[in-house]
């Protein structure tokens, strides 16, 4: 039972009053910012990152875990009560959730989302506690070639899964990797792509890139579309689940968790897939098919659980392998790097106490969120009613503040604006921005592993495919690239055949 003892030690460290306070601050801030329309989990984490700069590593990471889970919770409230859904993962819960709210069942929708998130988050955190040490044990035998192969898998799956086409996913990814090249090459001290600007020698900070891609470009896109008004559906009724609601919700929570955690825990992109799968599964299994599309509670319970379970699952490859597979995970990895910590199997052995305190605080944060969320719904609704002009003005003030806090110069603001303009172009061209964030963080790590491999083999490229595991991983990566193309061709054939028959 590896891990249980360390986990208990983690609880002992996390349950001190001061650390409980940081966890509480984290979940509250995370939820409050996550509730704000237009702010997804990645931006929530990036905007709040500068707040943790003055804390020691343990407190900062505890607060960070709270922010991460809180941001996920906040997003679901928004998607249920506001009629325009925000980021991709919560679009699904908005489908049924907003319909439920409009049918006067908003309280039940919020309750099933909150309790479902708690159930899924807790089960998935238990999963994390047991799977991560196991993955660490396997990962300790990995050499640079295996790591590089793993990263190739992460690259291809992230590009394949997000966005409307593989090509556009790859474009986002390649741009992120390019941005990641800026700065001094760690191994040789050569400056790359700095265009003679001394401030660029340190490279581009992930906070600046995320804030530019998600906040500035989002604001620009909203402006360019012209004015549109949003409405908030009022919440009425009891905040508790009725017995029939509960009976319909709990199997959906468990199914959502069962889909979300394993897929999230894979060292490959695709934390968004489980929510879609869960929605499809609930739609097929429901005894009330007539309610789907008009506010079926299973359609909120399942995807919300899947979303949160996947969020915890993503921490498995992040902590055990140092592999970020979502934009939010990339920001969290950057937060670790701020403290000179590199997540991965070595962190589990060298900083074991820190890692387990973080994991323990995730359990605690989850309980806090459940306690906070049910009674505080009224406060979150009030946040949703902030006029958009104050909201975006505030977002921009905090976006520039965060940039200034991590960079400390006006040059960083210029970088922020340029990245914001780039993000606007990406959105206009339907290129997903999340792969760019993953590419920015993963690119330098992949390069390091590639160069390490070739240094070991004295430049002989055969080392990359020298182990069976690496070969298998490359096959998986190739499949991720080819499968969508093949299924599309198959679907097109089917469509033309159907058209001919019809």
């Amino acid at each position, binding site marked *: 039972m590896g891990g249980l003892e360390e986990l208990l030690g983690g609880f002992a460290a996390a349950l001190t009053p001061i650390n409980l306070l940081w966890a509480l601050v984290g979940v509250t801030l995370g939820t409050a910012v996550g509730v704000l329309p237009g702010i997804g989990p990645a931006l929530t984490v990036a905007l709040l990152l500068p707040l943790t700069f003055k804390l020691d590593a343990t407190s900062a990471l505890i607060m960070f875990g709270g922010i991460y889970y809180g941001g996920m919770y906040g997003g679901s409230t928004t998607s249920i009560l506001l009629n325009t859904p925000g980021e991709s993962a919560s679009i699904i819960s908005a489908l049924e959730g907003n319909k439920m709210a409009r049918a006067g069942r908003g309280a039940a929708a919020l309750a099933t989302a909150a309790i479902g998130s708690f159930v899924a988050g807790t089960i998935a955190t238990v999963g994390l506690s047991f799977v991560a040490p196991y993955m660490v044990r396997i990962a300790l035998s990995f050499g640079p070639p295996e790591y590089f192969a793993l990263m190739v898998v992460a690259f291809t799956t992230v590009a394949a899964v997000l966005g409307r086409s593989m090509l556009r996913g790859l474009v986002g990814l390649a741009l992120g990797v390019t941005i990641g090249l800026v700065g001094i090459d760690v191994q040789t001290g050569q400056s790359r792509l700095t265009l003679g600007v001394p401030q660029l020698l340190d490279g581009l900070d992930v906070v600046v890139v995320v804030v530019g891609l998600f906040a500035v470009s989002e604001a620009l896109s909203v402006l360019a579309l012209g004015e*549109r008004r949003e409405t908030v*559906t009022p919440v009425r009724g009891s905040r508790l689940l009725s017995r029939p609601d509960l009976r319909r919700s709990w199997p959906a929570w468990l199914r959502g968790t069962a889909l979300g955690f394993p897929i999230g825990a894979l060292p490959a992109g695709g934390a968004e897939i489980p929510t879609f799968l869960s929605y499809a599964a609930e739609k097929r299994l429901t005894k009330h098919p007539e309610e789907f599309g008009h506010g079926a509670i299973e359609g909120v319970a399942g995807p919300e659980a899947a979303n949160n379970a996947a969020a915890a699952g993503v921490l498995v490859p992040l902590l055990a392998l140092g592999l970020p597979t979502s934009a939010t995970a990339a920001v969290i990895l950057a937060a670790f790097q701020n403290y000179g910590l590199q997540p991965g199997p070595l962190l589990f052995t060298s900083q074991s106490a820190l890692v387990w305190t973080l994991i323990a605080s995730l359990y605690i944060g989850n309980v806090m969120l459940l306690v906070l969320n049910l009674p505080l719904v009224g406060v979150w609704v009030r946040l949703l009613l902030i006029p958009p002009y104050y909201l975006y003005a505030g977002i921009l003030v905090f976006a520039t*503040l965060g940039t200034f806090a991590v960079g400390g110069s006006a040059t960083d603001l210029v970088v922020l604006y340029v990245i914001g303009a780039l993000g606007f172009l990406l959105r206009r061209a339907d290129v997903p921005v999340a792969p760019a964030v993953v590419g920015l963080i993963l690119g330098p790590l992949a390069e390091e592993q590639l160069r390490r491999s070739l240094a070991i083999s004295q430049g002989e490229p055969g080392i990359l495919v020298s182990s069976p595991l690496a070969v298998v991983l490359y096959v998986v990566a190739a499949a991720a690239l080819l499968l969508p193309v093949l299924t599309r061709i198959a679907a097109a054939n089917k469509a033309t055949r159907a058209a001919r028959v019809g």
Partner: protein
Amino acid sequence: MSAPVGGATVPGARVRRVDVASLVLAGLLVVLGVVLLVDASSITSPLGTTGLGPAVFPRAVAVILLVLGPLLAVSALRGGGDDEPVPAADAGAGPGDGVESAAGPDVLVGDARPAVLRDDPRLRVGVFVLALVAHVLLLGTGGYVVAAAVLFLGVSLAFGATRVLRSAVVGLVLALVIFYAFTIGLGLGLPDLGGR
């Protein structure tokens, strides 16, 4: 500003436009690829580097960019025919579409007064960009509080604020709170009035 007015000012927003953005992006990818190649050619590998030098990975990325650029251009010119349709994010009931919800009337976000600025996307984006630029320029001269208050006012106007004075006051209060919270509470240096 009611929803029909807002809707009428963006005619053809849903009509399939020529994918100019993808073409521009395709051009940018090619330019970046070339810049990367030129930059890589100026990187010298220090003596005794085993395996890959510092220029190899940038070259590989450059090649990828130079392949993706033309592919994206082709996709844009073919009207994105190889792509799946964008999933309908607006599947839900739109704002003000007359659907009466059982939970009572929906609460409109914001107030019903007309916005200070005309609802013209170009004007609004212009004001937004102006506010961002002013913020950078003011940081070094007017200090953080002035710069942030101006940014807040400009962005709020761009997003359809209805009262100039109220936006200015809210922005100033927020800037002051942030300034003192960060400099005293978190010990983070923000430029004060002289820009230092």
